[in-house]
């Protein structure tokens, strides 16, 4: 049903002068999905999100959001979006609740509607106790939750989240993920960018892997791992200078081997067996670790680089 395609991009391009930040991407997001853009810094994720958020004109290709064209119907589209930009963009001189009040008015909600919604949103963002406080001294995690609460003030059909947990400590990340699960359960369509593979695996039903403005792979986290990696990975650390000597041995017992500066990654269906066969060949790493493949491994395989540098 075309009705349920909330976002459709074909050959979508963004250039800044001679530089192409987004290089002809094709994307389709369905209602109710949690869809992700996974890629390292500079991949073009924010540039894409700004075009989707109708605050950055499209340089080329086609973009339809909620069936509308951002160039013609930007305001009507924005009325139905929630945007949590990479930077919080709160008014730090105002109190927590004032930030919600003024924002609701931008969408044409009446004072009464906004105030009624504020209680709920503060509760959702776990900021009820801080509602009268100025925003400036709040922690990074609180500001992030307030930004998300503010993005929900107009009850959006689609919530755009640009790197929702970058810069947060692990506990604040988990609190935030939990909030996003709840939204997803409520049927809000989520479009998320991230350079954390664990975030993509946790939150996204489907995602595209982006690099240098292009999409290099697409699928569910499971599908991507099945297609581009093995079930398990053996991480092998050797004394400096010795790693080089063991590459061939690792290649002989694994499907594929990636060399990183500080370790070898041996891709295999059964990590313990691979490790045992390495031992038989007299290879004695300083340490070894068998783990399951992640999206990080997918990215490494597709681009030869790691996500976070």
């Amino acid at each position: 049903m075309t009705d349920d395609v909330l976002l459709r991009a074909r050959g979508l391009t963004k250039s800044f002068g001679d530089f192409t930040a987004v290089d002809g991407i094709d994307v389709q997001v369905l209602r109710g999905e949690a869809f992700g853009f996974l890629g390292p810094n500079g991949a073009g994720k924010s540039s894409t999100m700004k075009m989707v958020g109708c605050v950055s004109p499209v340089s080329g290709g086609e973009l339809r959001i909620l069936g509308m064209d951002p160039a013609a119907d930007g305001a009507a589209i924005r009325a139905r979006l929630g945007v949590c930009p990479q930077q919080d963009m709160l008014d730090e001189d105002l109190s927590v609740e004032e930030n919600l009040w003024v924002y609701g008015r931008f969408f044409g909600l009446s004072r009464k509607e906004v105030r009624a919604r504020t209680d709920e949103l503060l509760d959702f963002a776990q900021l009820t106790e801080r509602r009268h406080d100025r925003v400036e001294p709040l922690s990074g995690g609180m500001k992030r939750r307030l930004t998300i609460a503010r993005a929900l003030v107009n009850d959006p059909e689609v919530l755009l989240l640009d790197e929702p947990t970058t810069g947060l400590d692990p506990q604040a990340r988990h609190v935030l993920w939990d909030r996003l699960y709840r939204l997803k359960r409520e049927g809000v369509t989520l479009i998320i960018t991230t350079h954390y593979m664990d975030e993509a695996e946790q939150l996204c039903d489907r995602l595209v892997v982006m690099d240098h403005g292009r999409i290099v792979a697409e699928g569910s986290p499971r599908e991507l791992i099945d297609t581009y990696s093995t079930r398990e990975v053996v991480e092998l650390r050797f004394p400096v200078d010795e790693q080089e000597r063991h590459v061939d041995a690792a290649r002989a017992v694994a499907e594929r081997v990636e060399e990183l500066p500080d370790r070898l990654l041996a891709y295999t269906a059964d990590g313990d067996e691979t490790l045992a066969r390495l031992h038989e060949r007299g290879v004695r790493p300083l340490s070894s670790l068998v783990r399951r493949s992640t999206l990080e491994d997918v990215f490494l395989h597709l681009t030869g680089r790691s996500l976070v540098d």
Partner: protein
Amino acid sequence: MSAPTVPGPAVADAPSGRLGPGPRRPTSRGERLGAVMAHHLYVYRRTWKGSVIGRFVSPLFFLLSMGLGLGALVDARAGGVEGLPYLRYVVPGIVAMQAMMLAFGDSTYAVMGYIKWNRMYSAMLSTPLRVGEVLWGHLLVVALQLGVATAIFLLVAAPFGAFGSWWVLLAVPVAVLTGMAFSVPTFALAAWLENDNGFSILFRFVMTPLMLFSGTFFPVDQLPGWMQPLAWVTPLWHGVELSRDASEGVWPGWAGVGHLGVLVLYVGVGAVLAHRSFTRRLLS
């Protein structure tokens, strides 16, 4: 991979009260402008205590030192200026000058802050607001500020006998227009500058000379001949002249039309430039 932490029992579910999918009620331009103004009024309400000195006390200092202190000397030695006691000459000029100073104060760091520090303008543009509404909603609040500050100053100065006529009430709209002739182009500048270094140049090399050489404290024809055209092409002198005419209840005739025309031109050209630099900076 760790699962998300289990939330405590008091934690709310995702907000309900859904507006539901589908088109939203279209808003009118007036509604959207009002929403932007509401935001800025909340900010002023939070910060007015800090600015009360600038708005109220500093014009009072000018009034006491220039109007009364210097005035006594000028009146005794020269018998006033242009046939007026110095107090009545200088205070309407200070009214216009204060509007300029407030306009610069409200249109520099604040605008740059909304663009690149807290990025509130960008947050606004992620809603149905258009760039013109974000710009004019803020400008209208600056205008409102100018009106309120001028009215307060008139109330403070009137008991000293600083004004010759009830027509001085017209000095309020004159001061607002004078202030906006500075504010609107300064919005354009603030959106164009990459950093705030330019502002100290603006204050030192534009605002201060204009304060001194725009006929506020002494007539422009006392200046060297080559400086007089500078007064004519910058807004403050026109505002000072109109303000002084209003204060004395003098009908300025065609000269008044000229003064108004210059001020309106600054607002108009400034508005086009500000719209352009806002768009370039915020919607690239």
